[in-house]
């Protein structure tokens, strides 16, 4: 694999992960628990869309086949998508959405803080811009986890159920392939094995504060690094891609 090809795949993975998470979060638009929170989450989704757009733009450029970021977003099938499985999981209730977001925000802040030191100037540029946004996202999701965990019996139960549903998708966040190995050597990619203990420590502290316990099963899902997804992704893509596919020449 050439360096350029590896960098393309790496950037695509980051772009897809942001795009699909943002698309999922946007399902809450107009359905949030109350107006202020509806706006807060939509605002966060918009930040994540922005990051996804920058990544896919760069990926399209690296690929050099004349495709745009829109082509990449709207004209690839599920097997050509490399978003982390956790991002495509259904939102569930608000507690599940929030715990998923907290797990991802914690990972993202660690990840993009490291990526900001990348030798690839485009990736480090996007990362530097993202750090401030993610810092706020994490403050938002962590405060909601604390609130649910220390709220009522029902809010704690829902939060715990959400964690039980989503936990087995967190292991994959730290999976590395030959793409990572190659780019780590070049000082471009982030070594995920270094992040893992830091993430675990922070998440454990959060869970204790919120009266949560980790699910007993150690099983972790895997597959997205090779384009293998849960059934949920196809439904997301069907909704997201239907209009551009029906009217491929439409402009706005």
């Amino acid at each position, binding site marked *: 694999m050439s360096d350029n090809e590896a960098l393309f795949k790496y950037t695509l993975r980051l772009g897809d992960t942001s795009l699909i998470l943002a698309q999922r979060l946007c399902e809450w638009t107009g359905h949030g628990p*109350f*107006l*202020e*929170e509806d*706006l*807060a989450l939509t*605002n966060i989704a918009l930040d994540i869309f922005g990051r996804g757009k920058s990544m896919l733009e760069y990926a399209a450029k690296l690929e050099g086949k004349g495709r745009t970021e829109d082509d990449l977003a709207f004209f690839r099938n599920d097997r050509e998508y490399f978003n982390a499985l956790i991002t495509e999981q259904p939102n569930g209730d608000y507690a599940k959405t929030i715990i998923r977001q907290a797990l991802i925000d914690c990972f993202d802040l660690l990840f993009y803080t490291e990526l900001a030191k990348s030798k690839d100037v485009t990736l480090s540029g996007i990362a530097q811009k993202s750090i401030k946004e993610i810092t*706020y996202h994490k*403050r*938002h999701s962590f*405060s909601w986890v604390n*609130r649910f965990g220390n709220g009522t019996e029902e809010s704690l139960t829902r939060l715990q159920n959400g964690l039980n549903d989503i936990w087995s998708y967190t292991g994959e966040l730290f999976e590395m392939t030959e793409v990572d190995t190659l780019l780590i050597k070049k000082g471009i990619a982030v070594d995920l094995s270094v992040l893992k203990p830091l993430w675990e420590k922070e998440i454990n502290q959060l869970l204790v504060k919120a009266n949560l316990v980790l699910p007993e099963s150690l099983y972790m899902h895997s597959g997205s690094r090779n384009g293998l997804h849960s059934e949920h992704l196809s439904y997301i893509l069907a909704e997201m891609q239907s209009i551009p596919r029906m009217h491929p020449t439409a402009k706005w």
Partner: protein
Amino acid sequence: MNNDSQGPLWEVFLQKKAGQPFVHCGNLHAYDKEMALQNARDLYTRRNEGMSIWVVPSSAIVASSPEDMGSFFEPANDKIYRHPTFYQIPDGVGHM
């Protein structure tokens, strides 16, 4: 707490720049201080409207009532000597 509750009301004040007064800009619903601050940030500062935020529970604000208008404010009307309109303001002072 009933299911429709959006939490208590908070008043939001924004400061545009350091040193300037905090100006009331609206209100919002939130269940606690941190949520009120975050909601204020998301609702009122997305377009660089401010550099600093105060949120205050609406219930903590003591307001005059319309019935008080006469006794509170009208006595000032016939005491024009309280308004500094008789003084010459040197040009160098500018706006006062």
